[in-house]
């Protein structure tokens, strides 16, 4: 490629990214701190803001481990065990990607609502799913389910089975082989899946907004908090919470990069 066309291509790529991704992000940061540090910090440290942060972190704390364990297990099933059900599992796992989060929220609403399949039985047992934490966890798990599977499957395919077979001839049982050979070999695929899952859970709006009922100080996660602040013309609060969300997501990404660099060194 000629130097001129190479520079042209670079400029095009950077310009596109700037316009679509960087400009809005910079704008948020700019608007947030336009009136100084106090207004956004006040908004975030208000009782509702703090509760929203705690609830968002709780969603991450539950949904991410669940989807990580499920994701690794599912990837092992898809790659290591050939059977006729694999095609169906593969397709079903992609559903959260294919279906709009709002629709996912609605379907959970129908399933666990007063007239749904599971709703009445659970209500009788004293378990409230809708408009409370369990429903929000369900929604978070649902929307972020495919990431670990999707990131782990190709890595698992690539490493093949020879290392595992070598471990077994050296006397390792299935459990030892998994912990000492398979998991270390796929760890960066899993880590990337975990980062994506975390980001997705933190940012989830549509599905959670429907099943939570958006009760301030009770069932409001950070994205819901942002939306409510914005609707109430409290732009400083909305931007402040947005920046907090962005920082949380970037921190996970950064943490993975630091870990990886340490490993490579």
């Amino acid at each position, binding site marked *: 490629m000629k130097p001129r066309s190479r520079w042209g291509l670079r400029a095009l790529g950077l310009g596109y990214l700037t316009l679509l991704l960087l400009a809005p992000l910079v704008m948020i940061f700019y608007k947030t701190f336009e009136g100084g540090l106090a207004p956004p910090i006040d908004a975030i440290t208000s009782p509702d803001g703090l509760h929203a942060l705690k609830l968002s972190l709780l969603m991450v704390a539950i949904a991410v481990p669940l989807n990580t364990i499920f994701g690794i297990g599912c990837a092992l099933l898809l790659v290591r065990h050939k059977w006729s059900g694999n095609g169906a599992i593969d397709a079903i796992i992609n559903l959260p990607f294919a279906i709009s989060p709002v629709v996912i929220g609605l379907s959970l609403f129908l399933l666990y609502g007063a007239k749904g399949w599971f709703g009445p039985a659970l209500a009788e047992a004293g378990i409230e799913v809708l408009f409370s934490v369990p429903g929000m966890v369900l929604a978070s798990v649902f929307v972020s389910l495919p990431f670990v599977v999707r990131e782990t499957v190709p890595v698992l395919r690539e490493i093949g089975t020879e290392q595992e*077979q*070598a471990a077994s*001839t*050296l*006397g390792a049982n299935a459990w*030892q082989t998994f912990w000492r050979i398979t998991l270390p*070999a796929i760890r960066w695929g899993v880590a990337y899946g975990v980062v994506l899952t975390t980001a997705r859970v933190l940012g989830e709006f549509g599905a959670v907004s429907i099943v939570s009922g958006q009760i301030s100080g009770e069932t409001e996660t950070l994205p819901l908090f942002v939306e409510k602040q914005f609707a109430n013309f409290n732009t400083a609060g909305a931007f402040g919470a947005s920046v907090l969300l962005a920082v949380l997501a970037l921190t996970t990404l950064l943490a993975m990069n630091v870990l990886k660099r340490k490993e490579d060194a």
Partner: protein
Amino acid sequence: MGISVEGAGKSFGDFQALDDVSIEVPNGSLTALLGPSGSGKSTLLRAIAGLETLDAGRVLIDDEDVSRKPAQKREVGFVFQHYAAFKHMTVFENVGFGLKIRKWQKVKISDRVHELLRLVQLDGLATRYPSQLSGGQRQRMALARALAVEPQVLLLDEPFGALDAKVRKDLRTWLRNLHEEMHVTTIFVTHDQEEAMDVAGQLVVMNEGRVEQSGSADDLYDHPANEFVMSFVGEVNRLGDGFVRPHDMDVVLDPDDRTEEAMVQRIVALGFEIRVEFMLADGTEVWAQLTRGELQKLELRRGQIVYLRPGQTKSFSGAPSPNGSGASTPRGLQGDDDAEVSAAA
């Protein structure tokens, strides 16, 4: 620890990988499973290791039926063609893996690993990762890893297949010496007949999931049981119903009643050995292996008409070969009934 396989059968879908295979590997021997790809040799090796379960038959190690034992309990050392190095572990950790699984003390592991690394000449590289090693070094590491747990038997699946020619030759010699020192019963799989003859004391020739013949290198070369073994173990020319080795082809300038007319097609010098390709009157292409001295004496040129006198011709169809007297002196281990050896000289 002797190994025997009795009536082993295994199929993958429609493909019959092993069909009633029985072999006997004496204690302390070094045996090669030799055959083309798809002959079932790797499947047989993997079945002995427990990495493949047989559909039929059984595997005995030291007279114990291990057919139902999982790989982890068979106490075999297995070396893979592509090394199967644990990429996230150092050379030290790779070699010590089996010992760690057996919960050895750290000090004892360290002693044993360093002893093995000296044996495979990798002692300076204990802290390296496999990605920092050459192919030959990786394979030696894999060998040390397999030997660390003092296996009853050592199984090698095309161990030198992924290495270049020079390294392959060095490792062969090295493996032979190692076996002489350790005397652990060893089976290795290869598709390279020269490698098999160079390293192993006993050869088992396999084809299409069956054992064609087993015996020493000399047995197989001089008394092949059938056409397949003859053409797989060493080079061969086909003359009518008979087969003759290229070094048994005499090239002469004057015809007599046992010679055949041939035209020189190509002369290839491979160092000391010269390969001369001919075409016979009926269009058959054959070649003869000559020495440099023989070639100079004959002064062969392309296009020249000469005469070929085949030496020992073998035929396996039962009918005597065209040049042969029919005097049969078979001494092969298997399939003697259909092997007819005739000395024409």
